[in-house]
């Protein structure tokens, strides 16, 4: 994306949410957008997903401008309970993805099995989202997203509503899936530890209005990462130091 600006409201009451964001994400890369509440992280992610258009600048995906939502870039929401279809069971939620993807029906059962096994929900396939725990719902959301075989996962604070232990498990889980599938991930968070644990690259955003990327930190530590390791701790402090609010 180049020089993305987002301005809300009219001339009289304009609010410059994003003021010139430049970022290139490589295929297969894991990028975290880190910043405090109200820095426009979610606005930026909505633009990447195609839900929203930038006021200025351009977003390109594989050389073509992004126009609208599409299954090459699947958004992944914090509120899995809302994002999933609550009247469908776990299995049916994945089937819904295959249905809109227009795959031949004969292929469905194998694909549904594959992704439910991958997210470790095979034994819960007939349960409805309301009967699943928060972590299980997020895993189901992952399975449903992977079922359309996107190239990019856009994740909007997906684990922020989970308890600390479940979140840690989900981190290991997500990294495992990322390694196995080689997806590109753009992950929005306000949690420094989460960013340091997960990302190849951390883009620190300044608080709005007029938010921009103030610093890009290459993590370059081997995974799995131990945050008490001196190198990781130093990185944590460096990122913390670059945050403004």
């Amino acid at each position, binding site marked *: 994306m180049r020089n993305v600006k987002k301005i809300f409201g009219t001339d009289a009451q304009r609010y410059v949410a994003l003021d010139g964001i430049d970022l290139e994400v490589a295929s297969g890369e894991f990028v975290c957008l880190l910043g405090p509440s109200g820095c426009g992280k979610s606005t930026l992610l909505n633009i990447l*997903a195609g*839900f929203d258009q930038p006021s200025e600048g351009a977003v390109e995906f594989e050389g073509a401008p992004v126009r*609208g*939502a*599409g*299954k090459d*870039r*699947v*958004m992944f*929401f914090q*509120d899995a*309970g*809302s*994002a*999933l*279809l*609550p*009247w*469908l069971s776990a299995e049916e939620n994945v089937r*819904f*993805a295959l249905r*809109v*993807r227009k795959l031949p029906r004969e292929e469905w059962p194998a694909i549904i099995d594959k992704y439910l096994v991958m997210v470790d929900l095979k034994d819960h396939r007939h349960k*409805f*989202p*309301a009967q699943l725990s928060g972590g299980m719902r997020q895993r189901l*959301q992952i399975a*449903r*997203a992977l079922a*359309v075989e*996107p190239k990019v996962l856009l994740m909007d604070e997906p684990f922020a509503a989970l308890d600390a232990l479940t979140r840690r498990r989900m981190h290991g889980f997500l990294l495992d899936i990322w390694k196995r599938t080689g997806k590109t991930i753009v992950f929005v968070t306000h949690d420094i530890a989460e960013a340091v644990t997960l990302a190849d690259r951390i883009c620190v955003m300044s608080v709005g209005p007029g938010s921009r990327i103030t610093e890009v930190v290459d993590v370059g530590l081997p995974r799995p990462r131990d945050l008490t390791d001196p190198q990781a701790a130093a990185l944590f402090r460096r990122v913390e130091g670059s945050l403004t609010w």
Partner: protein
Amino acid sequence: MVGMRAPLLFGASILIALAAWQFLSSFVFNPFLIPPPLVVLQTAIPMVKSGEIFRHVAISMARVGVGFFTGCAAAIVLGVVLGRVKLVNELLDPVIELLRYLSPTAMIPIAVIWFGIGETSKYFLIFWGTFFIVLINTTAGVMRAPIIRQRAAACLGASPLQIFLLVVIPSAAPYIVTGMRIAMASSFMSIIPAEILAADSGIGFLLQNSSILLQTNRIFVALLTICVLGFAFDRLFRIAVDRMLSRYMSYIALT
């Protein structure tokens, strides 16, 4: 035994009420003004045997049925449009907000002039009452279909039509059904004044006719019939919804 508690209490509640009624009308009030339950039962038996009561019930129910279902159908279609097309909503909402205060009862005089005292005027009045209740609920339900849910579906590659049919309409279903249930209760209430004022058959007519002839016992038969019918239809509606739409309804308490 646990499962029996509710029906036992229900039966006890009815029995206590009947006993109190019998006592009050026999010893406290004038039994002509409030006929005791046993007298009402004596009056009801020949009306049931001759089929008189069923004729009135059938006529009233047919009126409620036609008005209710046409009203629901029209309201759901328009409600979905209002929920999805902002301009239509903005143009129609003020009118709807004004018109919905015209209860079916308020519309009786003009309905009689427009449609006479035949069936059409009753269909119209029930339609009128049903329409606005279901319309407002449907519009609200469609508008409140979570944006996240629609966006998530769009990401998966769902077309706008698929999002509409597979995400928005099911999300609105609980609102629509709730509106229909309220409208059904309202239909049972509005058919009575319509028949009292402008009909020669139906339960409302039975009430009015018995009143003119000072037959309080027959009035009470008609009143009890309304109670039982309304209650029975609401239960039937709930059972039908549980059978057919439970997966759309159950989550509402959980999310």
